């Protein structure tokens, strides 16, 4: 870094003043339901003397925005990133630059219109409020900041720490990432959109839209059956037989869910591109309206999660997430910042995982199944509740409830049995290369590949019934992702041997033959 750049970097900097346009619009957007409520309430009280509520709210929001802009400053020194906020209660968040794990640059359509971007700096701390969010900077400055933060060479690592084995230092450069230094690992294939209907996002989006719509109807105090089209629709329902209604309803619902899920897929993943930068980071850019650029330091990558929920499994697809210190695995409907590949053919996902891990073994290894005791346990755990449902329904029918109750009750037994068998089939583990591989779940099946270097402890849990069956659940704890990755219901001695082989020397002193 040149001397002038250093000097500039060490001054306290403000956010872009253009954010004064972003904040009010967003806050007002959030306040729309409340404003509608106010208008309705004002009308209900009558006389119109409360007309000033609306303008007052707008002025209030503007004032808060200006205040927030005026009191927020940030500074980047060679050692620390510092953020100062607040007027009365001043707060300074400072984080060492070598603890920066991820830099996430997001731009909503409004941000993009004004040439702005929001920068989230992840530090991997669990304490809330310790992450830094700069909303907003000019887009170019945001990109430069990202490059600057991620391509520093960490100074705080002593020799011999587990992190060191991954990478040795490289020449320092603060140039923004250029495409020339990139190796592209994956890019969105538009044909993958066909997997969108098999994700839950469409269902969730329809539910959300219905919820908002219903809320609005309630707020506006309209009787839905008075509205023209709805009235006609209800009339139509009355005239046709019930099976036609059900059929039509299902078709319409499927259509809506499909359209919404495809829309959601395109919004989140359009232009998806994953590349490896020469400085040892993975760069992900994606998004149609809201664009997102995420950088993950490969040094911080502890493994990958290959998620294959039942529906995606049927069409041989999966999605990939990273296990990274500093990023939350469970981030939101669009996969959050740890997403490495949106729903795509399973082969493509496995291939990408192998490329990211520099090792094809964990994705090709044959998993060791957990044996008959584990299968019995899965079956008991599924069938006992199912039979309880049957028994309860039986008592209810005996006591005079509708006989139709028998149908779902009886159905619950085969469904539970099928789930149990599938859950057992999913169970498996292996040690492959330098990684612990574990798979579990049925409706939400997941294959976790955790690098043994990233394992920072073991939990061996045995419930009463597990002890009687000679089983245990072995959990490898780690600083990234879900914080712990379990190998459920594995025979006790197998669990201990597995733990001992994955991290030599840790369990060993406590083991007896």
């Amino acid at each position: 870094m040149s001397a002038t750049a250093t000097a500039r970097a060490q001054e306290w900097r403000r956010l872009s003043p253009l954010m004064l346009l972003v904040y009010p619009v967003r806050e007002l957007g959030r306040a729309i339901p409340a404003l509608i409520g106010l208008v309705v309430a004002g009308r209900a009280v009558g006389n119109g003397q409360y007309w000033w509520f609306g303008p007052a709210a707008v002025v209030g929001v503007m004032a808060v925005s200006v205040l927030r802009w005026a009191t927020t400053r940030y500074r980047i020194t060679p050692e620390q990133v510092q953020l100062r906020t607040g007027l009365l209660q001043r707060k300074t968040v400072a984080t060492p630059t070598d603890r920066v794990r991820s830099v996430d640059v997001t731009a909503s359509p409004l941000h993009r219109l004004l040439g702005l971007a929001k920068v989230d700096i992840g530090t991997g701390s669990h304490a809330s409020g310790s992450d830094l969010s700069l909303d907003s900077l000019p887009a170019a400055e945001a990109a430069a900041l990202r490059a600057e933060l991620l391509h520093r060479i960490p100074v705080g690592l002593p020799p011999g720490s587990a992190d060191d084995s991954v990478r040795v230092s490289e020449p320092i450069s603060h140039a923004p990432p250029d495409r020339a230094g990139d190796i592209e690992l994956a890019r969105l294939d538009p044909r993958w959109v066909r997997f969108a209907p098999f994700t839950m996002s469409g269902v969730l989006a329809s539910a959300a839209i219905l919820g908002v719509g219903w809320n609005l109807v309630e707020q506006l105090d309209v009787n839905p059956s008075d509205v023209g089209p709805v009235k006609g629709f209800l009339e139509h329902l009355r005239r046709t037989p019930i099976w036609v209604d059900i059929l039509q309803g299902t078709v319409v619902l499927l259509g809506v869910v499909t359209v919404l899920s495809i829309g959601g897929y395109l919004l989140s993943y359009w232009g998806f591109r994953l590349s490896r930068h020469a400085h040892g980071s993975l760069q992900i850019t994606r998004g149609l309206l809201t664009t997102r650029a995420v950088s993950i330091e490969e040094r911080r990558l502890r493994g990958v999660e290959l998620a294959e929920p039942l529906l995606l499994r049927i069409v041989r697809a999966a999605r990939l997430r990273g296990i990274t210190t500093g990023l939350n695995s469970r981030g939101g409907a669009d996969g959050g910042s740890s997403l490495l590949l949106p729903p795509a053919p399973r082969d493509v996902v496995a291939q990408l995982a192998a490329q990211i891990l520099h090792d094809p073994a964990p994705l090709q290894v044959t998993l060791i199944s957990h044996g008959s005791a584990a299968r019995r346990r899965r079956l008991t755990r599924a069938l006992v509740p199912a039979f309880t449902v049957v028994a309860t329904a039986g008592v209810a029918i005996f006591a005079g409830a509708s006989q139709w109750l028998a149908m779902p009750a009886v159905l619950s037994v085969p469904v539970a049995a099928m789930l149990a068998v599938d859950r057992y089939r999913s169970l498996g583990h292996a040690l492959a290369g330098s990684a612990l591989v574990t798979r579990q779940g049925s409706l939400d099946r997941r294959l976790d590949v955790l690098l043994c270097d990233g394992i920072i402890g073991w939990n061996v849990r045995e419930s009463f019934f597990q002890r009687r069956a000679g089983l245990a659940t072995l959990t490898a704890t780690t600083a990234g992702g879900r914080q712990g990755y379990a190998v459920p219901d594995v025979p006790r001695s197998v669990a201990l041997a597995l733990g001992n082989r994955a991290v030599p020397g840790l369990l060993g002193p406590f083991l007896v033959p």
Partner: protein
Amino acid sequence: MEMRDPAHQVSPRAIVFWTVRAVPGWLLLLAGQLLWFAVARDYAALRFTALVVTVLLGATHLLVMPQWRYRVHRWEVTDNAVYTKSGWISQERRIAPISRVQTVDTERGPLEQLFGLANVTVTTASAAGPLRIHGLDRLTADGLVAQLTEVTSRSEGDAT
């Protein structure tokens, strides 16, 4: 392959502590049922059965749980690792390497102070892996914290 238990047991005073701590919950339930007994007119048999069941369950829990816990709860610190075992019906062993230890806390609630006990919590960078040792003798706890601080300060790194 089996795993041996950690070397040290917790303080025997923990048995009394766990018993005393479990009493209020049962008393609350009992008080509710006695009130029901006093107020209601019908369901005499049901009221009586419920009361008997509560008394039996409560007595069993208070007699069995603390003893069982005392037999399970153990801990050990070596130069390389912290190893704990806890629980009673469900049991869990946790092992963390010293090199990954981030913080060591002691905590003493009012009731624990009365019994001269302390809890020691050893955290790592994973939210899934704090090791808790309950019901330690106060002096043992202080010694343990000193020992852990000493051993962890020798190992460096950001422990992730």
